[in-house]
């Protein structure tokens, strides 16, 4: 064949060289994708998986019962602790609790979907009667005010209900506010904006905390409840665990957290406040009027209130203290007034409730529900079990009330 073609081709015929039009974009595409692959890989490796929980079962000659509970996430770990111990004594009964939320606990109990409903906030007595339910308190819990303010010279700041209500209302916005300074003489407070955290989910803790604010400061608007219309821009977190994490991430933050999460909050390096009693509202500068949430102080508050309730009731969302004659939330408005008998009542205390039916469809089954609760408020409520979740035993007055109420439930 002729090799004449080996002569150099015309200049416009060259096949060599780049395609001059937009050569960049293909490399951009590849680069973007490869970079993203790396990001995705990191994400993929970072993701974990929650482990499922398996329910245990047992066998025996007698009828087997699995008693179901749903509701408050505060009660859940406590029941989880009690259940297996109860099964040790009564091998034919298994307690199956679920932490879903107090509202769900109430709703499920109302509809008869569970044997026991768990809630941090009592069910209104008239509503309870309508659904043939009774409130049965099983433990005393309390709430702590944690904050993330680095470099303080004291282990616990002094805060009172008025100051807290003003903080969440956006009236007090900086840690060096004169009102906070007045309650903490000699403490060097930083010039740091306050970021008040709240629970985004429905929560008994929100009920307690908004009740505290509502009762402590006249300027508080919007009432109290398991949900609240918070001031715009304040961050909300899911659950107490979310609050602990959120507060840890938020310099200058302050949050209300159930005492069950004390150890995890402390482990995260957070500090909690001493809260002012009623006397603190009168004389907020006296350190003696600020009380720490020790077991003794929490018990004192509960005793102060529950021994003085007239008529006797356990339908209490927040135990601020005991003013004789008061029968509901309004008692002790503004803080706890100490007495000679109970000089240091910590003013942010509540009861943890279970709801059970007074008209059970299966009385034989209900026998075990009642047996379990009777055990749970007496011999089952050992100090180690309670202290694991930082709960306190019920006061004798409440135990007496419970026993009476449980005795009224028809069983087979």
């Amino acid at each position: 064949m002729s090799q004449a073609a080996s002569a150099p081709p015309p200049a416009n015929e060259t096949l060599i060289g780049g395609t001059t039009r937009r050569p960049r974009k293909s490399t951009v595409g590849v680069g973007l994708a490869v970079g993203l692959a790396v990001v995705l890989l990191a994400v993929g490796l970072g993701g974990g998986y929650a482990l499922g929980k398996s329910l245990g079962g047992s066998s025996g000659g007698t009828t087997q019962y699995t008693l179901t509970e749903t509701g408050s996430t505060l009660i859940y770990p406590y029941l989880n602790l009690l259940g297996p111990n109860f099964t040790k004594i009564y091998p034919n009964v298994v307690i199956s609790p679920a932490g879903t939320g107090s509202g769900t606990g109430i709703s499920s109990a109302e509809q008869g979907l569970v044997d026991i409903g768990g809630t941090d906030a009592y069910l209104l007595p008239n509503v309870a009667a309508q659904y043939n339910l009774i409130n049965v308190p099983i433990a005393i819990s309390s709430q702590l005010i944690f904050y993330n303010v680095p470099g303080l010279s004291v282990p616990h700041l002094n805060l009172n209900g008025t100051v807290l209500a003003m903080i969440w209302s956006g009236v007090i916005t900086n840690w060096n506010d004169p009102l906070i300074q007045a309650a903490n003489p000699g403490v060097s407070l930083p010039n740091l904006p306050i970021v008040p955290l709240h629970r985004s989910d429905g929560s008994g803790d929100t009920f307690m905390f908004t009740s505290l604010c509502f009762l402590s400061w006249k300027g508080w608007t919007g009432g109290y409840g398991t949900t609240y219309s918070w001031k715009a821009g304040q961050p909300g977190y899911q659950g107490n665990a979310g609050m602990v994490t959120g507060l840890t991430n938020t310099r200058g933050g302050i949050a209300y957290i159930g005492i069950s999460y004390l150890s995890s909050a402390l482990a995260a390096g957070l500090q909690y406040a001493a809260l002012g009693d009623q006397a603190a509202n009168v004389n907020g500068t006296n350190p003696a009027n600020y009380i720490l949430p020790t077991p003794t102080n929490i018990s004192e508050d509960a005793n102060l209130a529950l021994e003085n309730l007239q008529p006797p009731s356990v339908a209490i969302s927040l135990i601020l203290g005991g003013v004789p004659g008061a029968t509901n939330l309004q008692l002790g408005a503004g803080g706890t007034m100490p007495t000679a008998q109970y000089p240091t009542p910590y003013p942010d205390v509540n009861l943890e409730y279970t709801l059970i039916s007074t008209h059970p469809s299966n009385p034989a089954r209900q026998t075990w529900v009642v047996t379990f609760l009777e055990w749970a408020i007496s011999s089952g409520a050992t100090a180690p079990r309670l202290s694991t979740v930082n709960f306190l035993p019920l006061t004798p007055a409440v135990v007496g009330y419970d026993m009476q109420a449980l005795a009224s439930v028809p069983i087979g």
Partner: protein
Amino acid sequence: MDRREPIPRPADGASTPTPVPALPNRRAANGEGRSRLRGWLASPVALLPLGLVALVAAVLLWESRLANLGPSFWGLNYFFDPSGGAPSVFGVSLFLVDSAIVAGPALALASGLSLAIAISTVVYLPPAPSRLLTLLTNLLAGIPSVVYGIWGYVVLAPYFGTTAQPTLRGFLGWLPGFGGPLSAGGVGSLLAIFILTIMVIPITAAVMRESLRNVPNDLVEAGLALGATPWEVVRRVRLRAARRGLWGAVFLGLGRAIGESVAVAMVIGASIQIPPNLYTPSTTLASFIFYQLDSAFFYPNLLTALTEFALVLLAVALVVNLLGQRASGADATVIVTGGGRG
């Protein structure tokens, strides 16, 4: 997603396509009979989803009784006093605006990245890295949303609070929505957008990948044979031919972005407001319904309001879905493809 069904070619000469030549009578009649039978069998199955949606809507309607459906329901204000001290206002538009503020950017980011992923896997990457990238994106789809939420507020939130937000404000602070106060703890709209973006990507990327992959090889080769670079073929041939599928992917992603509740509830900061900028906490309709549900069991009027919100969310989801179906509808008309070549 079957776009490979061959379409009969019309005969030459006619300037408009001629219909498929009629089959012999017997077969035609038979086939018709059979397809009618199949139609009868299929219709209850086809109606099932419709029935379910109708049932859900009916239950929601019944539960809510549209008790709050006054003018303020469509407003931008929300106020609820659980203890009944002050009249409540349930404005759903506030939440719709917030949903749009979060879902819009997330969808835009996710669509862009998904397109890059899809183009890379289908066109550029060699088979092994391409499969790896596909595997990784699919893996993202398998992670439960609650895990995204926990990862968001445990791992990402501190980083967003201390680094991501200030950096973004430093560069783009002059743009509306990028300046102003930061969210100290890191939770807020920006984090929700970020999490949602990652959650939407596997869906949009998968659909986009399939759409691009289903572009007939003939078209691609025709483009290359005309002297187009691979990128030009992507831009002018593949994207064009896969247009409907790509839009379908975007709408599918929008459905996910608007409907996601758990993960968003955990990282958005749950503040009932139209956020003044990208950083501050806000809420979306879906996440609000999710995190208020437990409280709604305490407060009957909150429950009716949430049920009405759920109806609105259902309506939005249906509209998005229908738009998506429309957008991705008739890809089959685009092209025919042959099998292999010699």
